[in-house]
């Protein structure tokens, strides 16, 4: 009987998610071939995956596989919808129902990760390290599974998962780092890894058992009682004063979407600060921690803002559905509520990151690399020039990141607005083309990494082409835009952007750079300003399109 139950369970998991499994498996040779073709002419890089990008790819694929085996239906509603509830009715013991997906998933992912690390990647890790990585990834998988069974109140679920994922990542890095005192330190990292892994396995097992006995909701309620004093209404929070419709919509947008990114960055930022307790941060190079934090922010901000904004599956909350579309607000009021929130959310997150970086630099005793970099810069540009160029660089990266986030959000809105059955392939083609362009840009940037200014001078086309394309789209969409009653706001915004651009150009002219570089940087700045402004044109049009189909 056990054998047939196991076969049925494994068959269901593989059958239901075979597309995801085959896709993940196919990514490896495909990525290998692309990397080989793409990196062929890049000196100094072997076509293997011994790069952060390769490692990231591995983690993404493993996480996807983790979701597949975590009883999560990827097609219908995200982490809250453990799909095979009917499995709980099978005439099989509960431990079997809990363990089969855990063991099948763990084995599959372990084999995949080991294969990747051993034969595909050039990452030099010994067997213990590879095993530790595998255990960590499968542990996260188990945590996802546990969360999908509604053990915790909904508001706590995503936070708990984030904390566990970050704790696991930090533990793995600390445990595997060459320096024994990096981040939390090797010993604390090992302890953290054991705790998160065993906790994941145990929690997932407990979740399935409790789900079968319909006890998950009882535990959920007990936790609520634990956090909120008994007898008190659970959410006796004072109601906000919402004097106007726009104020109400701003409040709504912030409560639904706005808090996610700042919350995420607070959790991320808390880890380096928490490592102060282990004295790890004082020993880790401040430049490494700061760069890591900035990288996490700039890499995560676009997908998080785009996805969290629109996707129903991501937040399991409302998108531009009937409820949102029937608010008695004009199209421009709806659009600007979204944009205002996006800016607020982005700015607050950046502020948190900057504050943590300041603490890191002040608390770290290892600022040598940072000081050496600063010294090289001041020798070349002088003190004022160095401050100015750093500010310009920071502003440019932030503007580019904001533009990417807002354009990603626009893309999601666009995807919502169009008939996907009819135009889906065209969008996919456009996405692939855009991705290709970005890859081309990244390759050019990497090849010319030692002479970035020369590259910028010679390769303006890559910067200007997207601007031309986006302007073309905006012009194409102009007729419906004329009916959007937000021209005065847009005019004010355009004046603001123009002012900032002119100030930036004046700042650039003050740098002691040859004319060619100055021209190249100026054209880059203008392009960036245009791209940054583009969402303010696109979002009102797209909101209008998705609201009135």
């Amino acid at each position, binding site marked *: 009987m056990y054998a047939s139950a196991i076969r049925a369970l494994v068959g269901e998991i593989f059958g239901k998610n075979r597309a995801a499994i085959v896709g993940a498996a196919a990514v490896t040779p495909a990525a290998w071939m692309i990397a080989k073709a793409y990196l062929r002419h890049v000196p100094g890089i072997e076509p293997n995956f011994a790069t952060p990008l390769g490692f990231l790819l591995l983690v993404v694929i493993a996480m996807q596989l983790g979701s597949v085996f975590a009883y999560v239906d990827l097609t219908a509603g995200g982490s809250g919808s453990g799909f095979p509830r009917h499995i709980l009715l099978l005439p099989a013991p509960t431990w079997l129902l809990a363990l089969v997906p855990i063991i099948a998933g763990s084995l599959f992912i372990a084999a995949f990760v080991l294969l990747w690390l051993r034969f595909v990647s050039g990452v030099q890790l010994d067997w213990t390290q590879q095993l530790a990585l595998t255990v960590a990834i499968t542990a996260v998988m188990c945590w996802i599974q546990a969360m999908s069974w509604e053990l915790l109140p909904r508001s706590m679920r995503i936070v708990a998962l984030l904390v566990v994922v970050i704790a696991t990542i930090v533990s793995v890095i600390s445990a595997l780092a060459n320096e024994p005192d990096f981040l939390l330190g090797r010993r604390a990292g090992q302890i953290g890894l054991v705790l998160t892994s065993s906790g994941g396995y145990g929690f997932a097992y407990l979740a399935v058992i409790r789900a079968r006995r319909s006890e998950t909701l009882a535990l959920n309620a007990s936790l609520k009682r634990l956090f909120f004093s008994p007898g008190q209404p659970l959410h006796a929070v004072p109601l906000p004063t919402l004097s106007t419709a726009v104020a109400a919509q701003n409040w709504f947008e912030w409560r639904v979407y706005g808090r996610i990114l700042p919350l995420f960055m607070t959790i991320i930022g808390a880890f380096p600060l928490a490592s102060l307790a282990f004295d790890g941060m004082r020993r880790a190079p401040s430049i490494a921690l700061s760069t890591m934090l900035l990288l996490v922010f700039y890499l995560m901000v676009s997908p998080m803002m785009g996805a969290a904004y629109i996707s129903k599956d991501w937040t399991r909350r409302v998108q531009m559905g009937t*409820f949102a579309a029937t608010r008695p607000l004009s199209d421009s009021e709806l659009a600007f509520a979204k944009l205002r929130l996006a800016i607020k959310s982005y700015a607050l997150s950046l502020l948190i990151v900057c504050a943590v970086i300041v603490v890191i630099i002040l608390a770290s005793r290892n600022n040598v690399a940072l000081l050496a970099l600063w010294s090289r810069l001041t020798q070349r540009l002088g003190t004022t020039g160095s401050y100015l160029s750093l500010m310009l660089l920071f502003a440019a990266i932030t503007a580019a990141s904001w533009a990417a986030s807002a354009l990603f959000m626009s893309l999601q809105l666009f995807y919502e607005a169009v008939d996907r059955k009819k135009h889906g392939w065209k969008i996919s083609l456009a996405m692939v083309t855009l991705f290709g362009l970005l890859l081309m840009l990244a390759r050019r940037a990497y090849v010319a990494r030692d002479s970035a200014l020369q590259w910028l001078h010679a390769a303006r086309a890559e910067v200007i082409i997207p601007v031309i394309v986006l302007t073309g789209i905006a012009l194409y969409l102009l007729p419906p835009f004329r009916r959007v009653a937000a021209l005065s706001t847009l005019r004010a915004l355009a004046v603001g952007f123009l002012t900032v651009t002119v100030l930036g150009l004046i700042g650039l002219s003050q740098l002691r750079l040859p004319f060619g570089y100055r021209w190249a940087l100026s054209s880059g700045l203008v392009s960036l300003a245009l791209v940054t402004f583009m969402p303010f044109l696109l979002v009102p049009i797209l909101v209008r399109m998705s609201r009135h189909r």
Partner: protein
Amino acid sequence: MNSTDNNVVDIRHLTRRFNDKAALQDVTVRIPRGQVFGIVGENGAGKTTLIKHILGLYRAQHGSVSVFGMDPVKHPKEVLSRIGYLSEQPDFPEWMTIAQFMNYMAAFYPNWDRQYAAQLLEMASLDARKKIRELSKGQQARVGLCAAQAHRPELLVLDEPSSGLDPVARREILAAVIRTVVHEGRSVLLSSHLLEEVERVCDHLLFFSNGEVLLSDSMEAVLDRHYQITLRRPGQLEWQALPGVFNAVADNGEWQLFCFADIDQLTGLLQLQGAQILDTRRLSLNEAFLARSSQRHTPGRIA
């Protein structure tokens, strides 16, 4: 005062296609002020598509839509602030408590009456401290109903509101709401599959099928003129040529005709053609709906 002033909704020659499928075909509808206007039809007949045009969620591809004399796509704020709407599957923000939800909704409507909203919640036996996601489907629908009418809208649009309510609540709440709205000279647009409910409360009926308006008349006329005639007549009967007959079933020389007509005139005409009338019976709305629907679905059964 022109004719538009008496109509809260004025739709003319509206056609809507989704790819190759016509969801609405040349639909012309006017909803007068102060009436309870019922829309009935099979699944996919075009009821929700019509309602979405009224709300401005669909742009008219052909024809025109005017609500309170305005285009709802061009003036969503002005139109929606005067409408109360409850959809078949309300996608309310489930994370809010009922109190938060009502507070949030109040900000959008200048006419929101907090006292009336509290009364409505009490009438619906809802605890304002509860979160929406903790409520049953029926309770969520009641919350939606309270929110839809707390600003005393000029037009209350109910798209299958009863689908989540138990029979007692359905009967009591819906009747009370509709009575209130109508007594104050406001209008209701009610789309429902529950024909008894429609028959009980609607003044006017719009019968939709495959995106077309098959029938638009006062409820009184609809009930007075729908008949089933049982007759015997040797040989074939060209029932399609008979005025008002929309469906017929033959069984061993006995015919059952379903019609929307002046019954005396029609029976007279049939007797002239040699038919022996065995029985005439007025159809309920439910029976009329089924007869009209089976006309489109089971052509093979029709003689």
